[in-house]
């Protein structure tokens, strides 16, 4: 015998897949991550395989996205290039989330001096144009994965911290938190078990939006020549290389940029959909 069917609220996952935006975004993201992960198997050629006889060939059956100034297959390089962008994107986002969540929840939960100091520090970081600071650090300390990810995290933790803080501010006066406090739970337990767990949906949404943002920053850096060193392809440095052939070979600059756009759009769509799915009351009120 089966249990009587009860009028069930669709699960968050159910709402997520039914949301067309997040579905499209999710698919785009999965394709890009798979491309990066499976690059050795997927890419028709190596990223540095040159063929000077086939320079600047337009898209064709042999080279779906054409070839670049060294006769390298653009499709292969776009696939390989996703690795650099996604790697830095994920590492920087993880760092930024950890710092932003820790700092924001402490500020929101304890309030008072801790809150003032942390939020003023966030203000300082928000008033330096991010790209300027990143540019300085990466140019002076070198464009390694660790440096780049670290400095991107340095300029992106502040908005995350603010969001988490305001969430914790509203959570800390809820009954279940007061109950935990009355039962003598430690600050650490309340923060971890009650505040952060409840703030998790917001953090996940931030993660998705932040991934798009960090990938944009990384591509901007490699456009300025502060990313992966050639011949290692990154979407940003491929666009720079393509810039000089714009008049004769539009495809060299166009496709890597399109890859950035699709990936970032994917993460943004997914994040938006996630926000709607995790909290229907927020729908249409995104800022």
């Amino acid at each position, binding site marked *: 015998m089966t249990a009587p069917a009860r009028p069930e609220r669709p699960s968050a996952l159910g709402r997520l897949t039914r949301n067309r935006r997040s579905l499209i975004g999710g698919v785009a993201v999965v394709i890009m991550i798979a491309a990066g992960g499976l690059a050795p198997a997927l890419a028709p050629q190596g990223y540095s395989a040159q063929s000077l006889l086939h320079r600047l060939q337009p898209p064709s059956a042999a080279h779906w996205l054409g070839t670049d100034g060294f006769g390298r297959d653009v499709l292969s390089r776009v696939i390989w290039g996703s690795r650099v962008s996604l790697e830095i994107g994920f590492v920087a986002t993880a760092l930024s989330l950890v710092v932003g969540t820790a700092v924001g929840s402490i500020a929101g939960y304890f309030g008072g001096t801790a809150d003032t100091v942390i939020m*003023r520090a966030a203000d300082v970081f928000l008033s330096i144009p991010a*790209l300027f600071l990143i540019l300085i650090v990466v140019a002076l300390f070198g464009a390694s994965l660790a440096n780049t990810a670290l400095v991107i995290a340095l300029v992106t933790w502040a908005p995350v911290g603010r969001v988490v803080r305001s969430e914790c501010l509203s959570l800390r006066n809820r009954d279940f938190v007061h109950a935990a406090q009355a039962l003598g739970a430690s600050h650490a337990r309340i923060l971890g078990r009650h505040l952060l767990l409840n703030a998790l949906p917001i953090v996940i949404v931030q993660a998705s939006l932040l991934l798009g943002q960090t990938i944009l920053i990384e*591509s901007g850096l490699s456009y300025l020549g502060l990313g992966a060193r050639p011949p290692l392809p990154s979407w940003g440095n491929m666009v720079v290389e393509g810039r000089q052939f714009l008049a004769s070979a539009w495809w060299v600059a166009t496709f890597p940029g399109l890859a950035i756009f699709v990936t970032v759009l994917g993460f943004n769509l997914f994040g938006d959909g996630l926000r709607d799915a995790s909290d229907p009351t927020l729908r*249409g009120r995104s800022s």
Partner: protein
Amino acid sequence: MEPGLRTYVVKRLGFAVLMLLGVSIILFTIMRLAPGGPEAVLIGGEFSQEAAAQIRQRLGLDRPLALQYLGWAGAALRGDLGRSFKTGDPVAALILDRLGPTVQLTAGALVLALVVAVPLGVLAAVRRGTIWDTLGSAVSLFGVSFPSFWLGIMLILLFSEVFHVLPPSGLSEYGRESDLPARVRHAILPTLTLGLIQMASFMRFTRSSLLEALRQDYVRTARAKGLGGGRVVWRHALRNALIPVVTVVGLSLPTLVGGAVLTETVFAWPGIGRLAVGAVFERDYPVIMGVNLMVAAIVITANLLTDLAYCVIDPRISYR
């Protein structure tokens, strides 16, 4: 000015000065902690340890970090930002020289973004769920997803390479610097690039802010007393909805100036952004400090003014 507001203004001014101090200390420390120095760039090629030491001494880089900072800050307070390591020109003059094009570019982009984003945001909110709403969210999603440098290059491809209607780069043609129509033609693509990117957040914010305002009691009251839909939206809801939009415009300045770095690079636009990029690659410390400090000062001042405007526009906001 009432006393409460005066205390608030004084407090905020104090914070602004502290923030500027914080920014300058952070930047100074980061730069001096970096491995290597300007001597490698200044000499170029092989050089002896003595030559490097000599240069560091001449530039004052051999002194303790704190002393260097105090020396720099003392001079900066008197309005002296030092001289470029590379050219020997006063930093203030270099910045002033490049300020005009950047102000023109960012101001143009800001106006363009507002002119498109606010009406579109209003339409999206009022005609919620219609094609206008969809168009609005498409604009805002695309806007935050475009890499600005690539958008710029695509615009060059379309308007300069395919249709040959607009110049691909530069501020004006050589020898025709005073030719206004030529300058306007050069400004179109960079302004469009920066403006399109900026539109997204303004449009999103106008929409959500207006939706919020339309839910308020005073809107219901206005409707109940029989005012027409348009009048309610424009007279009652929008005026209140635009208050938070003012803040967003203020807060968007760092993004706008940051975006100018890439846009100026793509279009060879002789502004602050390219000055900063060049200085960073050449380790021209005084220029880096000067540019960043000035940009931070502009941003902090703008935020301050925004907060003050906020208090003046909306009497419900209490200043603490």
